């Protein structure tokens, strides 16, 4: 059996014909296997959904109880048979509950890694390396200019700024699912124990993280706070909110943005960011290339991001590689939409 007989890119996403399922489908399908809770990977309206408990919970939080016909929770390391196919979930280190999905048929193993990172993150299970024949990798930061460094240093930068500008508020744009909680956890690790304020759109998911045993210290909704009270504080908000009239409630806010994109100045300037924090949920260039090498895969399929550069690198290392040209993924933090009314929710 050839790899493409097991997994094939189609319009709805990666399709596994012999197993009768799609991975992270972008259109409603009968049976979906979902890597993680980000909205471009986990969509509503499928017949049956197989995912980790956390991913299912996040989908429920976002879409309501009827987001799928039926659901099945699976643990890391647990194997599920679907037709002739064996499916096994492994931690991807991307966000809470994120998984790589190892799809095996006879002695051929393909790993669809979804979004992943090999960097430390106190809010989720660390990335696990899975040996395979074909490795399917993202390429969000698939250029050698993307090297993300230690996130703890970026948090130090934020705290130094808070110390230097005690009369200003610090507004940190961070993707609501995963990034925000990681930034909070890193702030706590750095010894910051003051209350951290949250934009309304972040409360639910952050409380969910806490309910899964992730300690985040004292969190307060920013809603209802007086402007002067916010001097010297840190507030987390979805990236789109930080360039909004919403920011007028803050005293002379320093606009920070926690994202791997902040590595490139033009990107930061374009968004009017004053304090770029290079903190990423995705593997950087060194992470991508190291992981690809370590899987032992002889063939690499590259999904969303900077496919060209990563495919070129694979080929230069003697690996068979090709872009999958899947559409509908990526740039999640650039496009996160804050829904009307989320601000006012309890």
């Amino acid at each position, binding site marked *: 059996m050839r790899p493409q007989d097991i997994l094939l890119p189609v319009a709805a996403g990666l399709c596994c014909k012999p197993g009768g399922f799609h991975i992270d489908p972008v259109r409603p399908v009968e049976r979906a296997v979902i890597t993680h809770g980000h909205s471009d990977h986990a969509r509503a309206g499928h017949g049956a959904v197989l995912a980790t408990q956390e991913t299912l919970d996040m989908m429920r939080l976002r879409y309501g109880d009827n987001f799928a016909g039926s659901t099945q929770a699976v643990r890391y390391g647990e194997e599920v048979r679907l037709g002739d196919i064996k499916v096994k979930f492994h931690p991807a280190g991307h966000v809470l509950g994120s998984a790589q999905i190892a799809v095996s048929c006879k002695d051929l193993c393909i790993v669809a890694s979804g979004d992943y990172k090999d960097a430390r993150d106190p809010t989720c299970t660390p990335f696990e390396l899975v040996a395979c024949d074909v490795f399917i990798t993202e390429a969000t930061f698939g250029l050698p200019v993307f090297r993300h460094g230690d996130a703890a240093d970026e948090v130090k930068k934020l705290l130094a700024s808070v110390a230097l500008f005690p009369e200003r508020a610090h507004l940190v744009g961070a993707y609501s699912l995963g990034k925000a909680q990681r930034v909070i956890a890193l702030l706590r690790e750095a010894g910051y124990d003051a209350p951290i304020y949250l934009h309304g759109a972040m409360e639910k998911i952050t409380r969910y993280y806490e309910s899964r045993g992730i300690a985040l210290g004292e969190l307060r909704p920013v809603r209802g706070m007086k402007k002067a009270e916010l001097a010297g504080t840190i507030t987390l908000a979805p990236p789109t909110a930080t360039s909004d009239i919403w920011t007028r409630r803050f005293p002379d806010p320093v606009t920070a943005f926690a994202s791997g994109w902040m590595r490139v100045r033009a990107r930061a300037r374009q968004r009017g960011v004053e304090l770029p924090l290079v903190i990423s949920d995705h593997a950087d260039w060194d992470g991508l290339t190291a992981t690809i090498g370590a899987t032992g895969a002889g063939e690499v399929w590259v999904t969303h991001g900077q496919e060209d550069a990563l495919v070129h690198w694979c080929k*230069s290392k003697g690996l068979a590689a090709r872009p999958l040209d899947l559409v509908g993924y990526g740039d999640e933090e650039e496009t996160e939409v804050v829904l009307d009314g989320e601000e006012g929710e309890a």
Partner: protein
Amino acid sequence: MNRFAELLDRLAYEPGRNNKLKLLTAYLRDTEDPARGYALAALTGALSFKHAKPGLIRDLIMERTDPVLFGYSYDYVGDLSETVALMWPKVALVGHNNPPPPTLTEVVTRLRTLGKTELPAQLARWLDELDETGRWALLKLVTGAMRIGISARLAKTAAAALGEKDPHDIELMWPGLAPPYLDLFAWLEGRAEKPVNRDPAPFRPVMLAHAIEDADFAALDPADFIAEWKWDGIRVQAVSGRDERGHLQARLYSRSGEDITKSFPDLLPSLHLPGAIDGELLVLRDGRVQTFNVLQQRLNRKVVSPKLMKDYPIHLRAYDMLGDDENDLRELPFEERRTHLEAFIRKLADPRIDLSPTVPFADWPALTAARADPAGAGAGLDAEAVEGVMLKRRDAPYLPGRPKGQWWKWKRDPHIIDAVLMYAQRGHGKRSSYYSDYTFGVWTNGGAGDELVPVGKAYFGFTDEELLQIDRFVRRNTTEKFGPVRHVVHEPDQGLVLEVAFEGLARSPRHKSGVAMRFPRINRLRWDKPPREADRLETLERMLKSVTAN
């Protein structure tokens, strides 16, 4: 280097002036000598060493990375220094502890003495030792491309804030100071006396004029003013003073305080009496003032050959006097300074330095007539080099900057403005390899302070040689690239001022500025003029009113 790099990094993103000041002051307070002094020097453009060419940086990265990946990366990032800083490969030195990254002091002192052939290897070593931000700052420093929206003035103001001093005091003593400014910081921190400006021939901040409009005349009394020709040359300050040993030192400064003495050695012997003269640099042949285009041959020259000096004899036409030997004259009324000047020029008795004549007038119509016909009103054969008249209040002290109501300039041609180059685009046909289409702008209040608003585009009027100069300027001063368009640095203190001539002006709702120029062309390059002194949109709007009123 890392701390300095962090500062630059943060400053590059911070839009607010006060916040920039706060960042700078905090850095200067928390950083030890001499590093902070070298940082101040870097920010004020006071460091001198041979800059590394982009080609050298490109070679270094090509030796270390896959050219295809470099291509993709450079394309994505759009800035060579930044691309190299980000993708420079990490080196792990086996069996060694990694050496500590270089300090700013090491970098600056080493660059001063480094031979050209040693530069690539040294640069590579530093790049190995620094992190991303450090590499970026280093490359900006060594390529001389530190454009982060910080003016020298702002950096000095931040230093002054260390000791709650007046930035003007620093400005005055600045020519006598040298990096790493240990004496300056000692004074600012209350550990030592104020450094005396030991420069025997210091620069004094210049006084500037406002452009006069028709409506202004009604409020002005002709009897309060002295008129002079406005010469189409280069404004300079010629200063001569005695050093500690009593030797006379002479210097020539541009209006922004840049020491341009080396470009005009032929004028120095004429500055043989101690004093500070404000005047216009001109080329005179057979006693006749030559046009600006002739004078231009003497500008921006690295080497001044005897032939150049013979063919383009330099001359100083004096119109004000700021100091007479030890005496500071700046507090005196203009009329009295002028008397001092006349006596000084007589005593000097030097053919290369003469007095700019006054233009006698009884009332405004008489001055209008003189301005329209300088040849008939006393300028004689020099009339071609007259670009208008200057009006100076008899009682005006010499005040730095552009004080209101003291000095007025009244240019002959109303259809000329000084604009700032904002964007450049490649030309077509034989010019396709040059940036020859220029978008220029003037200042306006954009709500959050002054900003430049584009008012027109020009692609001719300049000579081939000027085209090469602008092209070079564009390539060296690109801040961003959008397809074929390059954003060229246009900050108050950084950028290129273009004198733009045009045939007419019309209202245009299609343009952001609200005005459209007919037939704009580059009349002249004003390398001597800082962008902050370019014209304002209000000037164009007033021109528009007077055009429509006619």
